């Protein structure tokens, strides 16, 4: 059944950082909004939420410069 989470999905934990990225633990891959799979190579990854990163789907700290010039909407 599709609503039964897979063992993988059960182990994946996410933590949203206000004004910053989404921390993801326990994932083997990250599927972006275009459906492209990105391999996860470290124990915790930061997924970009401001969409300004030059390393999408990963955060590269760019959100700080975005929120500095324009008040954050996140």
């Amino acid at each position: 059944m599709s609503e039964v989470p897979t063992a993988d999905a059960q182990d994946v934990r996410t933590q949203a950082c206000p004004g910053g990225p989404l921390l993801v633990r326990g994932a083997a891959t990250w599927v972006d909004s275009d459906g492209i799979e990105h391999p996860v190579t470290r124990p915790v990854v930061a997924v970009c939420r401001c969409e300004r990163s030059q390393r999408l789907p990963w955060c590269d700290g760019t959100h700080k410069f975005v929120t500095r010039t324009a008040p954050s909407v996140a």
Partner: protein
Amino acid sequence: MQLPAPRGPLSQQVRLVLSGRATQGSMDWSSVTSLPRPADRILHDEDFQLALWMLFELHYRGFDSVDPDLEWDPLLIHSRGMLEASLESLLRDLTADDVRRANRAGGCFTNRLSGLIDELDGGSLATFLQRRATSEQFADFMRRRSIYHLKESDPQSFVLPRIDGPAKVALAELQYDEYGAGRADRLHAGLFADALDALGLDSTYGAYIEEADATTLAVNNVMSLFALRRRLRGASLGHLAAFEATSSAPCRRILSGIERLGLPAATARYFDEHVEADAVHEQLAIRSICAAMVEGEPGLADDVLFGAATCLRVEAIASETLVETWESHQLVEAPA
């Protein structure tokens, strides 16, 4: 590593004791440590910083031909304590306004800490490396940085047994990533050694200690001061948070400088790894480590802010010193 050459009476005394050529009893430490050393010059005092660096190094890899038991020699620990007290007192003065301002800004602890870091984040050195540095200046930067990066993250490992709960879990998670996440070829200190090798520099631990200036030694001593004293665990992790939170963007700029200069891929790889890694570590260090620790031990809040402000103030002084050196065309040649 060999004991470095002394740079004044204090480092001379320390060197004599460590090399077994003088006994503690034969030395008058009080006369050495009471030499007039203006507090605001301590960060630029290479004799003071080298003496302290040698005493701290006994807790890391030590020196060839130095008795390993001197690490816990009561008189050396006592002498080091006097130097540490002077340094800590200077750092408290240097950052008192920053801590006061952060607290006045109010809000939750995460916001106070992030606000302080954003306010003090300089980054002029990374911009210089990106736009203007020559290959020779870049190599000079790498040699200075090698004093810390060949033992990258080691100071903070001393803090693990001194904290508990979620903050401990998060610090272990961050350190695991720093130590290669189970892969020896991804140990961050190892990536830095590869970066040095690719530039034709010496990646032997401590290879460039003789040419490290006072401010480079101070950057290292501050980390050891905070990490080796349980009382200063809050400052150590605040320092870590500021370090990680001001690394990702500068690494991107340095990477672009490496491309401009056409430097080797292994050198680029170190900084490339840190763009993504430190974007993660920033969040871990501020939220999962520092904020969690302060929630459990609210009394540590001011020390976390003190550690963060110290990291950025001392780093700024070291960076300014380096850029000034370059701009006055006094680039120190590497010893042949």
